[in-house]
């Protein structure tokens, strides 16, 4: 029985020790000396050996459970601090978004087709059947006159910060929905893109019909390029997820989703940044009094910059895979190389 007490003490000591190290942050293991670390690993191996024997030789359920839980703490401590995924995958930094968009260009094409296709179709439809405008347009747009300086400047400069943040959060919400609803095999994403496309196209068509199109474009252009591009890309993020459900390939759908999830998230996060930029322009530049040519210039400049970014960025990793770098003499990589 003396032996048993010693064994229990050994388990308990390892559990407490591992718990303490786990709680003291990501660098806890690195602060240990070589002997301390070797001892910790010895203790972990002794424990996992006990666990394996407990399972295969029929120990009591509680014993197996208890050893299992201690082993989980040890495993999380010893493997959790060295993130294999982080160190093996190259990092592209800010160019990652551009790389992902290029990688999934089929999804971008599909999303743009649905979105702009719906916009174009409703634009043309309103030209030929003006009465459709009453069905498609939201009430506040029927009599909306973008040329009216009161309308154009109807956002008092004091309220602009509030309007700007409302616009940003509303737009980001739309992209989050387009992204998440990709999990409905793309149906939700498509519906969302269609609705937004029809809304855009019918308003544009209606204004065209009533000769207010120049003023409308003037209002939309400064922020529109960035905003519409972001919506398209968010739809693409949704279609990337949908792709894993519709055509998972040789793996289970859940595995395909897991493999592609990071890419879709990367695109979605990029869209959010784009929308923050677009929202700031919409809240501050678009309602301001700058003239028509300057508005075209803002649109051209923003589209040009995005084209440069999406074509040029992210071709080479900003940081090479850490496994390619020489490990130092202790066999541990320099902690600095682990920081993201």
């Amino acid at each position, binding site marked *: 029985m003396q032996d048993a007490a010693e064994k229990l003490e050994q388990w308990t000591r390892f559990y407490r020790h591992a718990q303490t190290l786990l709680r003291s942050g990501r660098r806890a293991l690195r602060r240990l000396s070589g002997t301390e670390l070797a001892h910790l690993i010895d203790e972990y191996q002794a424990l996992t050996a006990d666990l394996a*024997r407990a399972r295969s030789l*029929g*120990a009591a359920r509680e014993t197996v459970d208890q050893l299992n839980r201690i082993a989980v703490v040890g495993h*999380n401590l010893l493997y959790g601090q060295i993130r294999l995924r982080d160190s093996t995958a190259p990092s592209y930094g800010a160019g990652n978004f551009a790389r992902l968009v290029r990688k999934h260009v089929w999804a971008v094409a599909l999303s743009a087709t649905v979105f702009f296709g719906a916009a174009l179709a409703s634009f043309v439809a309103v030209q030929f059947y003006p009465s459709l405008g009453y069905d498609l347009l939201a009430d506040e747009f029927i009599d909306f006159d973008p040329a009216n300086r009161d309308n154009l400047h109807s956002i008092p400069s004091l309220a602009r910060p509030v309007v700007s943040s409302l616009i940003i959060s509303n737009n980001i919400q739309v992209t989050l929905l387009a992204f*998440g609803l990709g999990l409905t095999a793309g149906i939700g994403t498509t519906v969302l893109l269609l609705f937004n496309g029809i809304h855009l196209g019918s308003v544009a068509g209606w204004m065209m019909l009533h000769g207010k199109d120049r003023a409308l474009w003037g209002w939309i252009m400064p922020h529109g390029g960035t905003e519409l591009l972001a919506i398209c890309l968010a739809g693409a993020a949704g279609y990337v997820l949908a792709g894993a459900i519709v055509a998972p390939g040789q793996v289970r759908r*859940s595995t395909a*989703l897991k493999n592609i999830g990071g890419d*879709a998230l990367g695109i979605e996060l990029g869209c959010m940044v784009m929308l923050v930029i677009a929202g700031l322009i919409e809240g501050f530049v678009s309602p301001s009094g700058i003239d028509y040519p300057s508005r075209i210039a803002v649109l051209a400049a923003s589209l040009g910059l995005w084209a440069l970014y999406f074509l040029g960025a992210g071709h080479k990793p900003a940081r090479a895979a850490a496994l390619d770098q020489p490990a130092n003499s202790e066999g541990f990589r320099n902690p600095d190389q682990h920081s993201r």
Partner: protein
Amino acid sequence: MEERVHIATPDHVSLEFELAGPGSRFSAYVIDFVFNVLLIIAIVLTAYLTGALVTLRSLAGISAGASAPWLWALVVLIIFLINWGYYVFFEGVGKGSTPGKKRMGIRVIRQDGLPIGLREAALRNLVRAADMLPPPSYILGGLVMHFDPQGRRLGDMVAGTYVVVEKFDLAAQGASGAAWARRVEQGRSRQALTLPRGAISAQQLGLIEQFLARSHELSKERRRQLIWQITEPLLPLLEEDRDSLARSVERTERCERLLLQILDLAQQKTVSVAITPKAPPPSALF
């Protein structure tokens, strides 16, 4: 949906986790929802009070009143961040546990058994809209959970996560487990006991040992019931007459003697499993 999930580690140990059921996950969701609403109410109230203060100060001519719109712009953004970021933040920073999950004793883990980080938290929560379909019913997510062997909703699949039960105390049963492990190390493991008329498995022997160790904690009636349940199937193996024992006045005592006898037999018949008779030092185990 199964009850447990096994995860193989790089050193070939299989770690076992108990999956959280829909009940505890829903309860955690309700708690988080209430907490979320309270948080938003608190922020709006704070903003009102601050706004009133700013107005008062500007009326008194202490400062200009231009800061109020910025205050409300901030409030709009903060509320949006709370709505979408509550789970991302708490699960990402709190190792897979939100306040509600902590309360229900569950947490989110990665499929390799490690705690989740911000990336997994963002993935599984930003696609929540799909699980909520048709909003806010969670019917789609619930159906997917029901049919998935690991009880994952869509967000769990995208992020590669499981929701597991997190309950643990270094239990009182530790002592008997440790005694068991020591015996195994010293080569006196419990093996199946082969008798002329059949075998008693190692699990059955374990059950008997555990029962005898804890039977004093049971009430007299419960003990009488349980010991009969355990002993009765073994009687043919021991060549005992079931009917006479069943009618016996001191049935419980006789059963106990039989069980002890079985354990004695098992002790004598054990086969050595460890290579060395003495326990090796921990480092030599592998």
